[in-house]
């Protein structure tokens, strides 16, 4: 049983796509590994639900941002491997820039929070 950390962050709408694209920038891999990678790199703060992961992967594939092929995994099983397409790379850049702007803006607004004010 996987115990979810109490402070688990809910994914914002659309951010899962960005995370998947960013993960695939490191190289092609299958769905399970993508989920684990996101979980690991976020110090277990972000847990990708399988129920959202696969619809997202198929959606990105339908849009042509990622492509899929059946290959053998390290353990010798058939697995569906996803990789970033050129279109996906461009999309990642755009989304990334957008996210940067957004988080900077959020940061600017939220910064001056003193414990006394709350």
């Amino acid at each position: 049983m996987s115990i979810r950390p109490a402070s688990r962050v809910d994914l914002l709408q659309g951010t899962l796509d960005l995370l998947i694209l960013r993960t695939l920038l490191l190289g092609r891999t299958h769905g399970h590994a993508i989920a684990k990678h996101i979980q690991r790199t976020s110090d277990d703060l972000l847990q990708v639900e399988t129920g959202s992961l696969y619809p997202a992967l198929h959606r990105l594939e339908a849009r042509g941002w990622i492509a899929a092929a059946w290959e053998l995994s390290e353990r010798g099983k058939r697995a569906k491997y996803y990789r970033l397409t050129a279109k996906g790379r461009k999309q990642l850049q755009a989304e990334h820039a957008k996210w940067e702007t957004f988080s900077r803006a959020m940061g600017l607004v939220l910064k001056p929070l003193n414990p006394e004010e709350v």
Partner: protein
Amino acid sequence: MKQILRKLGWMIERGRKEAELRDELQFHLQEEAEQAEAAGLMAEEAKYAARRELGNAALLMEDTRAAWGWTCLERFWQDLRYAARMLRKNPGFAFAAVLSLALGIGANTAIFSLLNAVVFRLLPVADPQQLVQFTNTLPLWETGSSSGRELYSYPQLERFQTQSKTLSGIFGGTRLGRINVGFHGTSGIAQGDASSDNFFSVLEVTPQYGRFFSAGEDRAGASVAVIGDRYWRNRFGADPSIVGGAITLNQVPFTVIGITPPEFSGIAVGSSPDIWVPLHALDRLRPDSKRWTEPFSSAWMLIAGRLRPAISRERAQAELDVMNRQFLAEQLPISEIGGLENVQRFVHEGRLVLRPAASGMSSGLRDRYAFPLKLLMSVAGIVLLVACANIANLLLARASNRRREFAVRLALGASRGRLVRQFLTESVVLASVGGAVAVPMAWWGSLALVRMISTGDSRVPLAVDPDWRIFAFTAAVSLLTGILFGLAPAVRGTRVDPGPVMKKGTRGAGRSSHTLDRILVVAQVALSVVLVTGAGLFVRTLQKLWNVNVGYGRENVLMFSVDAKLAGYPSDRAGAVYQEILRKLQALPGVKSASASIVRPVDDQFYLLDRVNEIDGRGLPERNAIRVAWNATSPGYFSTVSTPVVSGRDFEPRDNETAPKVVIVSESLAKSAFPNQNPIGHRLGADTIVGVVKDSLYSGARDQPRPLLYHPLFQHGRDQEFGWGFVSFELRYGSLSNLPDEVRREVASVDRNLPVFRAKTLVAQTEESLMEERLLATVSGFFGALALLLACVGLYGLMAYAVARRTAEIGIRLALGARRDHIMWLVLRETLWLTLAGIAAGVPLALCAARYAKSVLFGIGTADPLTIAATVVTLIGVAALAGYIPARRALRVDPMVALRYE
């Protein structure tokens, strides 16, 4: 498009994608389980953990499929199957709904088919939008029923043809009317047209066999003829070898050079010529010395042309108007009749106007029926609305019964949009089935309508076969209908709060939800009021027209026409033939009296106008000339058609060619020419008045009494001068039995080649003259009855449902000793209230709508109290009937059963 192709491709791939998705998830589970095992869990436990982590696998697959992008189609397919299943489960409801929809949509399609054929259908020629017809803003001569504004003279055609730079081709044409076509010794009557030799080339029609007229072929002595496809099939058995063969037209030899293609049947709606000859062939058939040179007294052609590409109609019109005025101004001083006020006015004030002719040249049929058909189209639209309201109501009742089902589905996570979509799919399926059933019904209906308006000796040539326009219309109407009647029940039916509904069961809808049903029923009643009032107005109009005192007796008169010219008689010998026929007719045993005339009562072909400009040798200034309608009759005409001779005498055999010229006048003419005098013995022009007859309505019941002049047929000889040459015979008979056959025998005994046509009784002729009114009265009556039936069903449905819902209440009331008539009244009262509300809304609506139809009414106002009273009484009667059955059912409620039932 690309989107759709991609989706289709995926549909085919679907099975593979599905398997892949399963594999992918399987792999995910295995990975998860292995990792869990590696973290120290037992193999079994690890599997369960992986499953738990995956969550709702079905939902996950559903969501992933959604990402593929064709769930829409898939859901639609599901909805379709579901809808079909629901309809199969309720055959009664499905039958009622489909039937009323089919009637509504079918009625619309049938009327639209006719309207399409009469008004919209484009000529089957290349680029019909480029065609224009020449018209005048003023008529040169008033020719009665047709205003004569489309008529031009031959010199004008020549001028336009040689000088116009804006039109790529200009042709002229005229009707020949009936011609006798002889072929290998057999003869038969056909309709002929004469046209300039560029007629087919300007229209860009290509022959099916042979060739059409070539340039320069329209010259003196022209003897070529083109045969229409339909006539070629009927008369010549579709034999292509007829091309190059010899035929005779009115006993004059011609050579067949070509056959028109099947789709081309002339250039005006309702007239489809069987034979075309070049204009100059007219000289061989019907000589007229003024035909080619006189611009004013001899305007007999319609002229039309084709605009050059990129030239607007306005520009062409500007060019041609100037050209035309110049031409007329040149001709005015030369013409013999150039001094006449009428001609002067025409030349100075008239303008040439180009009318778009993409859907054909001006047509009497179109003028006559376009407006009635548009009226009927609106009526049919209202019928469809009533049908929609009816089905919406049925669906509402059903939606109430399905609340539990919806509640369950909402509780299981279906979105409301999804339910609405499913509901709409059901209603669109219903509407589509209705539309599909409507197509053959409409086809049959439009044929019946064409038969109904066919007054001549043959069926009106109207192409009402379904074309893409009609299919598009039906499809659009069905779809719209489906959405219209489905939307309200869909939105309201799905507004369900799952909790309470599931607890309460199927019954027990909130009070407020029944307002909509009531509004729908009230709307049905209101629309029915409009339709029934309309039907009433049209029926009353027909009655009034029928009861007009026309000045002649309709009963027991048979009429028929003979044209000696068709049998090859020159005009100077025609009179003798007609006299011979008349003698034979008078000798027939069943005939009380017989006569001949040029114009027959309620004539559908002739209208002769003249001016009296000399009284007793005194010339009248042109503006005071008396405009008269005239006719030429044989002795015995007035007694045959029962028009009383007021003073003086009827014509007699002694009024022959050598006797002094005599004339008979109508009372109106007598009054205006000789006020307070006895007109007998006075002279009009060179004719001496010998009799005065009662006024009669020259051209049917809508006509006003007008000055009428009668010449003696066999003295005057004016029929020959007029050039039409055929006369009508009238017979007053005791019994009709086989009189028509005897008549044909007698005429054949004079000359076997004399064709008899237009044989009909005066009653039938009158009926035909009232065809638009009859069409309106019959069809709107039918639609009115249909709307009433639908409204009745709607009321019945609502009340039956209300009674069913209130079974328990009624049971308690009865148990507590409520009187039966009280319970009855309880149900009837609501029905009557709804009906009264509908009537209150419908009557003002009907009054507004009637104003729109004002021009076709006769003898009654738009707010005819009798019609409205009859409508109200009818509706209340129908409502009482609709309420009575549920009311009786309410009375039969057994209190014990009702209480236990709950």
